[in-house]
């Protein structure tokens, strides 16, 4: 199991690094969808091994909402407006994103070793931590609402990977998964779509939102 977790974690980190460096929104969405499917598959396997219906339910939610529904919905919106496929001006340049995202992986490992490792004693626990920080960096470093939402859901994926592997049996985790995904759905259905109607998916600085 440890080897499988490490392998899944390795692929997840590779994929999130790709997302950090990529500027085409569609490719980022596809990568995120694949990473969600991989996590869902791992959770499903974990649920079977541990005989935990909670973890199996979580894997099915992950596959449906984050693997299929949200990426599908985002892509459908992008197809309608081709010119929005590429984020022209990211907050942090691509070159700088590459450097920072690599440093985040190292930082997550060091942070994990000096804090949680003392109690958890599993070195691969640093993988979800790296994914969490990468998700946060994706939110900070981009203006595109779709990519910010993917950053948020990357954090969510990391959390479920962390919980499923290290702390199985958390009683309310399915409810938590549903509510977190609802936020994603509401964000996309209620906010992003309307923003697109108002001509821009980019988050703008407004005078009314300063100070």
């Amino acid at each position: 199991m440890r080897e499988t977790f490490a392998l899944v974690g390795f692929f997840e980190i590779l994929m999130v690094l790709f997302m950090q460096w990529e500027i085409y929104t569609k490719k980022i969405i596809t990568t995120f969808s694949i990473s969600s499917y991989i996590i869902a598959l791992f959770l499903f396997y974990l649920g079977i091994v541990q005989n935990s219906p909670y973890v199996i339910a979580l894997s099915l939610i992950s596959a449906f909402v984050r693997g299929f529904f949200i990426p599908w919905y985002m892509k459908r919106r992008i197809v309608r407006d081709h010119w929005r496929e590429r984020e022209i001006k990211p907050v942090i340049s691509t070159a700088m994103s590459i450097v920072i995202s690599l440093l985040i992986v190292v930082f997550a490992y060091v942070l994990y070793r000096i804090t949680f490792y003392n109690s958890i004693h599993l070195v691969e626990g640093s993988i979800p931590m790296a994914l969490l920080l990468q998700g946060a960096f994706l939110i900070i470093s981009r203006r595109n609402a779709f990519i910010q939402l993917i950053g948020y859901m990357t954090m969510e994926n990391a959390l479920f990977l962390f919980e499923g592997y290290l702390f199985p049996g958390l009683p309310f985790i399915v409810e938590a998964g549903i509510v977190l995904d609802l936020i994603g759905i509401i964000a996309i259905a209620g906010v992003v779509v309307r923003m697109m109607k108002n001509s821009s998916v980019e988050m703008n600085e407004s005078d009314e939102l300063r100070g």
Partner: protein
Amino acid sequence: MNYIYTLPMFFTLAASLLCLVKKTYFEEVVSIIAAFSTVAVAFIMVFLPSYTSHYLYIDGLSKIMLIMVSMIYASTVMFSTTYMKYIDNPSFEKHFYYFLMNLFAFSMLFTVSVNDLGLIWVGVEATTVTSALLVATENTETSIEATWRYIIIVSVGLIISLLANIFIYSVTGTLNIQQMMQGVQTNKILVLGAMMAVIGYGTKGGIFPMHTWLPDVHGKAPAPVSAAFSGILLAVALYAVARIMQIVNVGTVKEFAFWLGLFTVAVAATLMIVQKNYKRLFAYSTMENMGMMLMGLSLGKYAFIGAVILTLSHAFAKSSVFYLSGNILARYKSKKIENVKGVSQRMPFTGYTLFFSALAVTGTPPFGTFIGELLIIYGILKYFPLFYALLVISFLLVAFISINYKVGSMVFSKPTDTVVTERKRVGTIVPIVNTLLAFLVIFFVPQINQLLSVGMIK
């Protein structure tokens, strides 16, 4: 008789479902009936003993929160009946607004009633789901941008608190509040989990450094939504922090919370000086009060009672301030302080009520906020050197001057137009009632103390 403890949740949930029926004024009538029924049940509950079951944990603190949430919910629904008419191009139909408002109230009532830290998390997160679209009711680009910031920042904060719950569970093996109240074995992971919970829930409570969504949302949300956010939502988030600190009763966590509270007060008071938009000014005032509450919760004993009194009194006063800001916006069509002149002459009821409610939110006697802040400062003096108490007092003074000077300039300045444009209607009366309630809280201090110590009023 135990079913009575679930009635507030039942009323709000049933009302939200009924609001889906499209019928003229039906959603308003249903919401008002549900809101006042909730208030009635919440008051009955204070005379009943504390109740604990597998799912519910209703002690004195929960009962006070239930009263507060239900009363602000009721006043917000009442105020909405007039205010919604002023929104030109709403994002959705009126019945959907009430559907969301009732669900929002349900999620808050659920949060303060459940017997599980995990379910508290679900409740707090559900408030984001139900309230996110309410922020964007006015359907402008900036309100949608504010909603987006709200969703992203608050959700990241709540991911931190979910992680905190996982850590706490890994140590205790349960998230059941009643079981954990009997004592938990503390270790580094538990302390770390509790500290993360303070940051995570603190994000929703407008606590520094994750407060940045708060002024945006309060600035852009419609007045009744701002009132509900400021008065009760943030307090509900701090309720989760209070529960965590009751369970993980460790000095490090409390000290951490105290410093976060102090920084919050400092940052909010400083930023208030430069505010030019009155809704954002009131939002920073909320942040300052939340900082004080967090300090009170962390200090415990008298300061804890002070924090509860402050929470209750602030909820009435601040909701009143936001209702009034909605009335002013409807007349002056501007959120800039410099554009609002002579409110006391053009809108006498609104003007004078705003003046008194601004005094209330800044902790002026004889309002309940004064008693609350006094008890918190007493707590600071007890555990910290005099310097810290003086520091907090100086920040409170800055906040007091900033708000009252700016409100004074809006209320008592010379108007550009002397025509009285105010009508006596629900939207004018509701803020007056809430300001009065912010004062009346002082007469119920012994009952609040009794509720917190024995769980009921005998």
